[in-house]
């Protein structure tokens, strides 16, 4: 047991190689698209909406298709079932997501510069936690929208969970929900971090540090 802890400590002390540092920079670069591209996209088709209603979710805003008109249309339709209006102001995520992503960018660069495995592990663990939390937060938001229905609504529907990934039929609507470039970039950043860790690990295994004096 003690040996294991020692080994772990040794590993955490290992300076990052050039490859790992490059991967951290790649991870940093991967965060840039999240400011430009949507994280998620929902598409809703109905017989009356052959072209579909589109909703792009960015890290900091909601954008409806058809020059924003689609959000209005979605809200008009949802008011019949007593669903809360989709509004950018209601997403607290939009306030902290871009900021937190920026922090991660800085932490990635910090790890690349400070260059200890510990820094990399720190930021990786935090980043995974952040990813999981963001996903949960998104899911919870969807759940809230589908469950907190006004009991006085004209049309009573059973509470529902909109799809998080893939397709679901909701009343007369075919609803599709898929991650977009922004999310894939966040995923790629995680992959780059993992790769950086893998490289350090391999390097450490191949060139064990000199025995402690």
């Amino acid at each position: 047991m003690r040996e294991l802890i020692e080994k772990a400590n040794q590993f955490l002390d290992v300076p990052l190689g050039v490859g790992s540092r490059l991967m951290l920079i790649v991870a940093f670069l991967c965060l840039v698209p999240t400011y430009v591209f949507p994280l998620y996209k929902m598409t809703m088709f109905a017989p009356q909406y052959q072209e579909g209603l589109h909703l792009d979710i960015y890290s900091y805003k909601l954008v409806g298709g058809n020059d924003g008109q689609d959000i209005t249309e979605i809200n008009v339709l949802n008011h019949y079932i007593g669903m809360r209006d989709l509004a950018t102001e209601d997403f607290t995520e939009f306030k902290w997501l871009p900021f937190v992503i920026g922090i991660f960018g800085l932490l990635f660069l910090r790890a690349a510069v400070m260059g200890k495995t510990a820094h990399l592990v720190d930021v990786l663990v935090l980043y995974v936690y952040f990813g999981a939390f963001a996903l949960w937060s998104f899911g919870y938001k969807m759940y809230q929208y589908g469950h907190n229905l006004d009991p006085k609504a004209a049309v009573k529907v059973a509470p529902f969970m909109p799809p998080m990934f893939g397709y679901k039929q909701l009343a007369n609507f075919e609803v599709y929900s898929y991650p977009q470039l922004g999310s894939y970039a966040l995923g790629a950043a995680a992959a780059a971090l993992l790769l950086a860790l893998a490289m350090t690990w391999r390097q450490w295994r191949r060139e064990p540090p000199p025995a402690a004096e």
Partner: protein
Amino acid sequence: MKFTGTGTKLAAVAGTVALGVLAAYCAPSAPKTAKKGAVVSDTAAAAMKVYVAPGDLDEYYMFASGGHSGQIYVYGLPSGRHLSTIPVFTPYPATGYGFDDESKAMLGDLTWGDVHHPALSETNGDYDGRWLFVNEMNGRVARIDLRDFKTKQILGPVPNVSGNHGSAFVTPNTEYSVMASRFSIPIPKGTAAGVDKYATDYKGVLTGIKIDPKSGQMSFGWQILMPPFNYDLGDAGKVASDGWVFFTSYNTEKATGKLEVTSAQKDRDYIAAVDWRLAEQLAAKGEGTTIGGVKVLDPAKHPGLVFFMPCGKSPHGVDVSPDGKYVIGSGKLQGVTTAFNWEKVQTAIRNKDFAGDEDGIPVLKYESIKDAEVEVGLGPLHTQFGPDGYAYTSLFVDSAIAKWKLGTWEVVDKVPMSYSIGHLTSAEGDTVSPDGKYLVGLNKLSHGRHLSVGPSQPESSQLVDIGEEKMKLLLDFFTEPEPHYAQIIKADKVKPIEVYPKEENKHPLAIWDVKDAGVTRNGNKVTVKMIAVRSTLTPTDFEIREGDEITIALTNIEQTTDELHGLGILDYNINIVVDPGETKTVTFKAKKKGVFPYYCTNFCSALHQEMQGYLIVR
């Protein structure tokens, strides 16, 4: 750099996976229904079914309401060709309607009407091709004679009825056409009370308009005072349920304000079942209280007159099956339509199997009177019938028509409608003997299924073949705004004349010889007897004095099919059209001095351009 080999491999794998995910998991660009391709499975077969060769005639007439255009539009089926417009509640310069004295008097002060439900006259529950009755929202019902496709009478605004939507449905032998208040108000009209008094001071009113079996002349029959609900649609019972008429009602909450929410709180609203024979008897006995100048029956005082049948909330259509055994009520906010068994309704009434009452009107128990809740789909509105026990229900939300079987309650087929269907009409589909064969979906939205004509888009109607097990979409055509209900009648049941026979023209100012044409004066009243015949309007000129009141009586002495003539007088807003054998008058004041050319507006002959004259006002 040592990482190159494995690192690149790893990166390549990750990249491929990411790309694969991107490619595999994207929303489609069109809905699933669209992916199945056109609903028309065989274009050539569909084309053959709707193609009416040049010179050939259609098999059916479709009389479509024109909504707030105030008119009735006549289409031929299966071609979907627009054959004619019958002006009813709105002036129509094309036929001079609303310009000549008679039609102007019929329209009165109202120059618009919101036409909803045409009702062809019936004999023994089947269309007889004599008249067409149409309602409009300002409390009026009009009769169109199908002998000449002309509006002959407008009755109303009828006292007490407000927002006459649930109309003009006729009873099986055209004894009555009915009316109903969509917007309850304090009555008599003219009484003001705030909406805070809605539940107590506002009333709905149901009305029976008596129809003379020989002439079709409409007169006031009876009225029934109802709780302040919104009465929506109706249908007369037939065969098994003859003697009854049914009206759906929403807002049984008696709510006001934002009705889209406040009127949708209760799980059930009602279908009112009215014993119209009893209403007739009570009215004949002089029963009722005089309100707004007419006798109104209070159902609380006359047991057996009205019963409420609970229905799925906010019901729209109520439709009686061809044998009269089932009353189909569709709660528009649900996914089911309810089939009520008329026998069970009668049993419940006999056994006083009531759940309570509304302002003294007994409410039956839903469970005791319903036979089935048919899972037709979302937003069921209206039901029509085929000859083989099938029913067809329009689904607004699903934008489709569901075909289902009476008795087994099984939904056997669905056909998508483009888009958001309201009413539907099958060939003679609300009579005791539906024809089957065709059905038309009267859609609310057309969403670009046509060449763009700007933001005011035409209404799309779709012809569906219901001759076989599977429904097949045959044709899109575009109906004048805004069709609510329409009825389809076999062409050979309608026998219109083509000219007005000379011997039938009893107009006091009619003349048949150009020698009789001319001006007669009586003080400042001037009468001009004018003849129109190819290609002269006689007299070809005449003089009057400024300030005269002038009546021009124009007789078209032609007896040849399609030889219409018109009289347009420039700058005087005069425009009348006379059919062959017809006399019309137009009366106006000569307010402007000068020379005013008049001419034949309706192209008639090779020398049509020469058919002109001068009105000289000194």
